[in-house]
């Protein structure tokens, strides 16, 4: 699993020692980055303790976007809460919906029919690509390359068009229902998806052409924000960040859900756990998602799209934890049912929130400019961090 030789980020003590040897003993500077800062991806506030430009430590202040999603969940019926989950990670709304629907289905002991599961996989993987594209664009923008942003947005548009055609919404899709799908796929869905796959493959090469071997990109990302697999596990970091640190952990393979065991795909892992590896891992993931989509589109079975679920859902008393591999990491739903129409307790385990904890350990000893790169590479969405 974890490579013992992986670099562990230096501890605080060594940094204090280094601090003493700096050129001019200026006072330690405390800088507030955000919540209104162009590079904090929303309303994240980071309090940086700086020595010159070197980060001695940082603290994330979150909650500026808190809407009490979990509390809302406890005051709505299971069906009513479904659209709310789209508002957490709004760039990967489909994944959120998938996780929630599957969790409730598990609680109800129903299973979506195969056709629905195939469509779910296609849409979720499309969503993973669009989420990664958005990440790539903004991450590159933070590092100073402005052009990839426009390329990725251009191509992401095609995915959003498919979503819009399917369910009428582009961002907060509310695509799935508990027990399957509400809508049958539209005519030409398969064709659209196939066209998209063949359209986006050269585009991913295009992004890589701009960045992968770009010297400045290499210098800015290699060895920046290193985190070891051990630290990742200790902090509960999941998703591409974990995989880039050399831990082969993907819930799609480890605890297959929604038919993923029927598809053939690889899990990319990195070696060094730095920003560049995370970049590469996500690029490969996009290609792997395309592979899954190709297989799924080829094999969509005929049949019903909705399992038999009661009109008024009253799951049996009990609790359930169900997690899926969202684009950003493990997205889990913990639902406690007291047998009524509303959950007794609803808890979401958002990947961004947990991954954000690693920011401090990844940034210590790096420069301010690296903090920007690391925030970008963690791929956080504040809507999900604050919920």
């Amino acid at each position, binding site marked *: 699993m974890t490579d013992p030789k992986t670099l562990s980020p230096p501890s605080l003590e060594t940094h204090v020692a280094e601090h003493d040897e700096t050129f001019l003993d200026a006072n330690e500077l405390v800088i507030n980055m955000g919540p209104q800062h162009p590079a904090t991806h929303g309303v994240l506030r980071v309090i940086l303790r700086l020595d010159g430009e070197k980060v001695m430590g940082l603290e994330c202040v979150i909650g500026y976007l808190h809407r009490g999603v979990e509390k809302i969940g406890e005051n709505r019926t299971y069906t009513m809460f479904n659209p709310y989950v789209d508002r957490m990670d709004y760039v990967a709304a489909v994944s959120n919906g998938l996780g929630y629907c599957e969790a409730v289905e598990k609680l109800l002991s129903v299973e979506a029919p195969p056709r629905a599961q195939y469509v779910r996989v296609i849409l979720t993987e499309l969503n993973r690509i669009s989420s990664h594209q958005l990440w790539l664009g903004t991450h590159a923008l933070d590092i100073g390359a402005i052009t990839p942003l426009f390329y990725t947005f251009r191509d992401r548009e095609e995915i959003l068009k498919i979503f819009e055609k399917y369910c009428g919404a582009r961002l907060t899709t509310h695509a799935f229902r508990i027990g399957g799908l509400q809508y049958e796929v539209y005519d030409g869905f398969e064709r659209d998806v196939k066209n998209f796959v063949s359209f986006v493959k050269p585009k991913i090469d295009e992004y890589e052409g701009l960045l992968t071997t770009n010297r400045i990109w290499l210098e800015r990302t290699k060895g920046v924000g290193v985190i070891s697999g051990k630290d990742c596990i200790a902090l509960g970091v999941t998703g591409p960040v974990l995989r880039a640190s050399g831990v082969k952990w993907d819930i799609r393979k480890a605890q297959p859900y929604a038919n993923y065991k029927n598809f053939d795909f690889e899990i990319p892992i990195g070696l060094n756990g730095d920003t560049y590896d995370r970049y590469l891992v996500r690029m490969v993931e996009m290609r792997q998602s395309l592979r899954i989509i190709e297989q799924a589109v080829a094999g969509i079975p005929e049949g019903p799209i909705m399992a038999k679920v009661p009109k008024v859902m009253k799951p049996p008393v009990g609790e359930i934890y169900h997690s899926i591999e969202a684009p950003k990491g493990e997205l889990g739903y913990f639902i406690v049912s007291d047998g009524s129409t509303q959950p007794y307790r609803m808890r979401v385990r958002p990947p961004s929130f947990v991954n954000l904890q690693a920011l401090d350990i990844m940034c210590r000893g790096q420069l301010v400019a690296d903090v*920007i790169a690391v925030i970008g590479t963690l791929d956080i969405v504040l809507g999900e961090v604050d919920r």
Partner: protein
Amino acid sequence: MGALVQYIQSYLSSDLTPGAAGNWFWATVYVLLVFVGLSVAVICMNWLERKILAHMQVRLGPMRVGPHGLLQPIADALKLLLKEDIIPAEADKIVFWVAPFIVVLAAFTVFVVVPFGPTHAITDMNIGILFMLGVSSLSVLGIVTAGWASNSHYPLIGALRSSAQMVSYEVAMGLAVVSVILMTSLNAEGTGTLSMIGIVRAQQAQGMWFIFKFFPLGLIAFAIFAVAMVAETNRAPFDLPEAESELTAGFHTEYSGFRWSLFFLAEYSAMIAVSSIAVTLWLGGWLRPFPNLLSGATWDLVFSLFPGLAFLFLAGMCFFNVARMPKHPLFKIQTIGLAGFGVVLGLIGVILFVPLVRDRVGDIFWFSAKVAAFMYLYIWYRGTFPRYRFDQLMKVGWKVLLPTGFAVLILTAATAFFEPSVEQWLRHIL
């Protein structure tokens, strides 16, 4: 009236710059011309940058103000001029007020010695290139004081970064320049020159642009300069001082309106200034391509047609786009405007074919064309490269460019010293 025309003609036929002739009237005229021309160039550059960058990034860029956004820079300028001039309460008022003017003055004063042609320079100084480097380095002062006077964290860090960057890259830049000055001394007298016009004349006399001299030494020196000049003007990929993802807008974060536009103006004219240094030193300044190889009256005529043809081409583009305009009544004014612009460009093109004009503007055209190529490169860099980190930027400056610059300088000196004897020796044994 006739006397006036005669006076102008006699002046135009002299081969001295107004400064050298001590003619203050023409010097003033030239100063005004350069000032106006520079402002127009900055405005064009503004539009072109937005347009080219937009097309690189699959966007359209400004399209609303005027046909294809042609009037956008003017609208921007008006907006900036009419904006409220905010001075932060805790700022050092005087310094805050003066800083942008220092930057602008430094950026504009440099153009006193830029040779747009053998006679088209305000003056030719004995210390031309030294003067250019010195005065352009003064803009550091404006940036530092601007950052300090804002009395705010981000501008201060931006200013410190910016000045550290400019000071370090000046060293590499200077070394690259010195190797060119060495090359100018390869003549009968054995003395080089610092004069901008003298440097171009030396390239003419030696029959090659200095970028090809002692291949690849000239090319490497040019490459060092080309990197250093991007860093010197704080442009991508060295635009750390204004890295918006880190420092908001760097040293001019607290500036707005007119004062901000001065920084903008200074940045772009500094870009033009350093590009003109590069063009003068390595790319033969005002010399047309192949002045020695393709010499003679016929070739002179052919090359002198280029300026007019360039403008006619632009006019043709305008008319092409007029034809492509949607035939909707709402687009009527835009279509007429674009056609009018095309007509103006075409007229300029036609005027440039008049023999008297043609002979005088050829050098200006070639100089501007070469500078324009650099301007395009600036935009291209910005569309392509991510941004360096500060320590990496310093590393590139001190650990890569500086040693390379020293090596090139020493090798150039050695080559210049030994070349004649080696040549003699070769001739002797062959």
